[in-house]
């Protein structure tokens, strides 16, 4: 930082200015979360009489219970808990499978180059730039033919296919920095194609596995479009349920329930960030440090 090397007076002023700006930015960023949190603990009357940012007159957890168990999402009124588990059932296999396939693809593309492997990688890369909307119809037709329409399995398949482009890119870029000599040494030691992957490359892939899991978990958990298009009534993910909950109008709008439901929907991604977040930056910059 510039100011740290200059004189004391300027140092102090510049520092305060920086802190001030940072604090302001943090405030702007945190304000919506604050509003969501306090609103979710307010009663309906409290919301109507108080201001947006005032603290609840009385802290109640009714809206959290309602959002989880009794709020109406369309025709049913069982809250979002069923959809929460739908999302878990979708996101866990989708993340694990797409991460594993990405690791394997990256291994092959970077360490077992074949004729046309560069072209193959370019085409994979192209997949990262395909908008969701473009694949909606063909994918629906395909799921129908496979008999997977309106199922969680179908959703997992869609997310795996869509995610493999990203996961392949991540792992390929990570493995390209692993010296080829490591693979050569393993070949001379007698290790075959799969042994090299299991015994040599996967064990050193922890940072990039974390990055991929965070990335895939976030994007699959937060996805709405695939969820709304390909899921059936009993396989809808939480994002769809949240939308239904907010849009279901039965008289007065229950903002406190909406807010509680939205926070519940965001908790798993927050959790993943807290657990694996330290690997995220480390993993993204891993290529720049000689391993």
């Amino acid at each position: 930082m510039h100011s740290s090397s200059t004189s004391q007076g300027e140092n102090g002023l510049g520092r305060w200015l920086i802190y001030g700006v940072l604090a302001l930015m943090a405030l702007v960023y945190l304000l919506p979360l604050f509003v969501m949190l306090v609103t979710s603990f307010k009663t309906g009357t409290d919301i109507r009489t108080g201001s947006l940012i005032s603290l609840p007159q009385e802290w109640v957890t009714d809206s959290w219970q309602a959002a989880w168990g009794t709020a109406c999402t369309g025709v049913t009124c069982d809250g979002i808990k069923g959809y929460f588990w739908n999302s878990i059932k979708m996101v866990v296999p989708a993340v694990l499978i797409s991460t594993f396939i990405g690791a394997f693809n990256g291994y092959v593309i970077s360490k077992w180059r074949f004729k046309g492997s560069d072209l193959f990688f370019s085409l994979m890369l192209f997949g990262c730039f395909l908008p969701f909307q473009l694949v909606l119809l063909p994918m629906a037709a395909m799921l129908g033919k496979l008999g997977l329409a309106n199922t969680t399995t179908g959703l997992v398949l869609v997310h795996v296919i869509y995610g493999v482009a990203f996961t392949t890119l991540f792992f390929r870029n990570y493995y390209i920095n692993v010296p080829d000599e490591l693979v050569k040494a393993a070949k001379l030691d007698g290790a075959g194609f799969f042994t090299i992957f299991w015994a040599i490359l996967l064990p050193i892939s922890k940072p990039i596995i974390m990055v991929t899991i965070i990335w895939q978990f976030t994007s699959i958990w937060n996805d709405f479009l695939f969820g709304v298009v390909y899921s059936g009534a009993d396989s809808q993910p939480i994002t769809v349920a949240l939308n239904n909950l907010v849009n279901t109008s039965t008289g007065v709008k229950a903002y406190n329930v909406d807010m509680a439901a939205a926070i519940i929907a965001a908790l798993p991604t927050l959790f993943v960030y807290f657990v694996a977040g330290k690997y995220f930056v480390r993993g993204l910059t891993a290529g720049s440090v000689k391993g």
Partner: protein
Amino acid sequence: MAKLDLIDIRKTYPKSDLETLKGINISIEPGEFLILVGPSGCGKSTLMNTIAGLEDISSGEIRINDVDVSGLAPKDRDIAMVFQSYALYPNMTVRENMAFGLKIRKTPTTEIDAEIKRVSELLQIDHLLDRKPSQLSGGQQQRVAMGRALARRPKLYLFDEPLSNLDAKLRVEMRTEVKKLHQRLGTTIVYVTHDQIEAMTLADRIAVMKAGEVQQLGSPYEIYNHPTNMFVAGFMGSPSMNFVPITVLENSDAHACTELTGSDGKAQLLALPDKLKTYVGKKLMLGLRPEHISQQLSHHSETDLISAARFNIEILEPTGPETIAQITINDHAVHCRLAPDLSITAGQDLDLMIDVSKASFFDPDSERNILL
């Protein structure tokens, strides 16, 4: 211990018009230490990789103990390799690194333990067995890499510039270690380097390569003293051999000689071997190593092929054990090795002794050594 025969190895990379290896023929005896040396891009590492089976050859045969292995996968050739970057498996301890190849070959655990004990004691790394490679210094990693190769007791060892990542002092130490190890185990080793000191000190025989061809294959002594062409002569030795264009003359006693012109323009006669009498009137390239031009040495009587000459000393470069001086002969800069305690300053004239008995003579067009 195994015998290795490389028979007319050719290699052309796909999408390339040029041959990377242009017919390599080398026979390596059991227990021999062969060094492949040459400038970067000469094909020495490619040749090494083809022996290991990491790259295919376009034609030719690679025979280990008279069995053609050129179609075999690397793991079936029973070869171990030590890499420049050591290529230790970062997720494994030293012990696991050394055991990896043995485990894959389904060696019984007791045998693996015994083998690791033997190798780690041999290389003095037995106290490091439970460390990860990242916790080791460069020299220790180097030892572990050698240990991993030794643990499998393969037929053939390949070393791909194994010392070039070490600092200068450690490199000299490890060079001695490698030599000791070879003397003790008597293994067949093919060793790639671009360091000519390493090549001279370690090898039983050296293959000097350039542009995919072996320029000369011979003992360090032969390579140094009887280079087949100007490339080999210039590549080995530091400072490198001086090349001076000369015209062969005949003196009044019907002996071959030539004229050397210093920076002052004065010509002095230099006796040449009589073998060169057939070249009288022709132009040749005289190859003189710096140590063949020295200050006057009293115990060297002036024989036929040691001539005295006086030259102007232009530059002095003291290195400690010797002083490298630069003079000019026939408009070419020439380095000579002088004793370090000689009291002269740059710009002075000095009486020098030129020993032509060890000089090489090259055809200026073909660059071949005409006396071999």
